[in-house]
């Protein structure tokens, strides 16, 4: 503690330079935070996917439906314990920018399948008894200030016409990363009103008794429907979610590349700044050594200064990123899970400190190796 004023005095020696260096860390870590949020948003589906769930699609394409009759056949596959199904609706609420996912779900089995989404019993009951009923996630309800009983018109883009729904329930997620921006309504309502593909569903989700059996069951299910008019393509829910992310491009590589360039630039900028700072203080460092401060102390002094700049700048950047995420998804629904996780903040801080250490180590070494007599001779 007795050296604190020595470190702080040096940091405040050139306030503008310290502020700019700290600012560089803040900007870089803010960017890191946002990239982590975007990556998390894309990976969220993969992360929360149930290990005991498989997704069964039409082999031709995800937009091709499957017969409702497959439900019973799937239930008969040994190892399958539950089956539910859903349909993508793809409607527009008020404005195309107000995107959120809408699913026509099987009111009997959906809740049992996705137990991470919690709907109060009375609300679920109300949903069961209202053919135009809908259940919405709490984030979605918050976004549009919806409440129970509200009547919501949605214009169909796949299924023509304006569809009106009564909000009968609001679900919340058991985990922070559970997506609460979805809009569910009854599949039987959709099937009754739609003009084509009656008796067809978008996809099935099946629960299996033993996750270790997934590979065998994937094969067994697809074999069950081979050579039928609607062959299936089954995958684990995780693989299904991952394939969605892949369709967007290699987001992680993009994020990694951008992040690496930013941090490498930060490293060069900070390293150069610290090198200049040390060169300016050559005589002072020599005096410190002359009066008895060790080479190690001088080494630590320079490194600690850099690490403080890194920690403060990084902390500010990550703090701002966190504040930014608290305002919610800025894309209007494309990134429903817009959340900076504590572990990402931890990784960000570690990265900042690592860059601080790497940037400070060379100037610190040169300071520690300084020969007192040579340094004092310099003017």
């Amino acid at each position: 503690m007795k050296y604190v004023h020595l470190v702080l005095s040096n940091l405040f020696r050139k306030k503008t330079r310290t502020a700019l260096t700290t600012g560089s860390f803040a900007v870089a870590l803010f960017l890191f935070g946002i990239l982590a949020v975007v990556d998390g948003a894309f990976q969220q589906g993969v992360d929360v996917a149930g290990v005991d769930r498989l997704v069964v699609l039409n082999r031709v394409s995800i937009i091709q439906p499957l017969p409702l009759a497959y439900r019973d056949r799937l239930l008969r596959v040994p190892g399958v314990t539950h089956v539910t199904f859903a349909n993508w609706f793809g409607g527009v609420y008020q404005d195309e920018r107000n995107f959120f996912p809408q699913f026509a779900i099987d009111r009997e089995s959906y809740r049992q399948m996705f137990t991470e989404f919690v709907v109060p019993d009375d609300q679920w009951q109300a949903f069961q008894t209202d053919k135009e009923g809908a259940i919405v996630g709490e984030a979605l309800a918050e976004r549009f200030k919806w409440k129970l009983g509200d009547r919501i018109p949605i214009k169909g883009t796949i299924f023509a016409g304006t569809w009106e729904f009564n909000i009968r329930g609001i679900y919340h997620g058991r985990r922070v990363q559970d997506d609460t921006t979805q809009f569910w309504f009854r599949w039987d309502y959709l099937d009754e009103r739609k003009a084509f593909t009656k008796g067809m569903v978008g996809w099935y989700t099946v629960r299996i008794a033993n996750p270790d059996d997934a590979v065998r069951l994937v094969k067994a299910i697809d074999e069950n429907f081979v050579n039928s008019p609607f062959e299936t393509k089954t995958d684990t829910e995780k693989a299904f979610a991952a394939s969605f992310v892949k369709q967007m491009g290699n987001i992680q590589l993009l994020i990694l590349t951008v992040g690496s360039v930013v941090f490498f630039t930060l490293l060069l900028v900070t390293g150069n700044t610290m090198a200049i700072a040390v060169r300016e203080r050559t005589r002072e460092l020599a005096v410190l050594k002359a009066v008895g401060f060790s080479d190690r102390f001088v080494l630590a002094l320079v490194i600690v200064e850099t690490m403080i700049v890194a920690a403060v700048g990084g902390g500010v950047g990550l703090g701002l990123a966190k504040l930014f995420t608290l305002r919610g998804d800025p894309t209007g629904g494309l990134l429903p899970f817009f959340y900076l996780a504590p572990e990402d903040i931890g990784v960000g801080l570690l990265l900042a400190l690592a860059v601080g250490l790497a940037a400070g180590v060379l100037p610190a070494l040169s300071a520690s190796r300084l020969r007192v007599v040579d340094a004092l001779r310099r003017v």
Partner: protein
Amino acid sequence: MVRIDGRGDGDALIRARGLGKTYRRGGEEIHVLQGLNLDVDAGEFIAFMGPSGSGKTTLLNLLGGLDVPSEGSVTVAGDEITRMSGRKLTAWRSRHVGFVFQMYNLIPVLTAFQNVELPLLLTSLSKAQRRQHVETALEVVGLADRMTHYPRQLSGGQEQRVGIARAIVADPTFLLCDEPTGDLDRKSADEALDLIDRLVREYGKTVLMVTHDPLAAERAHVVLYLEKGVLVDKVTAGRAR
């Protein structure tokens, strides 16, 4: 007593034997100091004079453990510092040597108090004890009322007095002053010399000073002249002028 003939009796506080320093520049060897002997008793005030490049500062650096000799030895209070490792030598300097520099070499971002406190940070003294030591040192140099001033807020003479306070605050075995008045006007130089004089007379400090200034050298008990790395003459005070 000061001897330069290498026949000291071993009771000297500082003893140099056969001290030599050679630098290599390109293919050429430059002998800055050659076979120098010196015995200095505690409480002596010695001035080193000589032309530029005669080896005065190099000698001071060797005696203060800032540099290592190419040959010979330096023993201070029984410790042969020329055999110490770099780390031990650094620790030794903090306990035994107080440095006063020509350019003061105060740290500009620290106050007078903090500059003087620096050597004490290496000790196990408590904060209160450090404060007491620093206040005493600043009182000795007459700057008790300038503790919170930064170097830029002080005159050159005051800066040098803060430098002297920093040199004495840890009560070192001896003081090494490298041209302490070289950057001061006459009045400030006299004040600084008065102070060094007082440290010797009242506090029994041992002072080794390099100077070009005959008036400064006149304050010393003994003036030693160096020429081409060899101690060539020893003059008692008053004759230096």
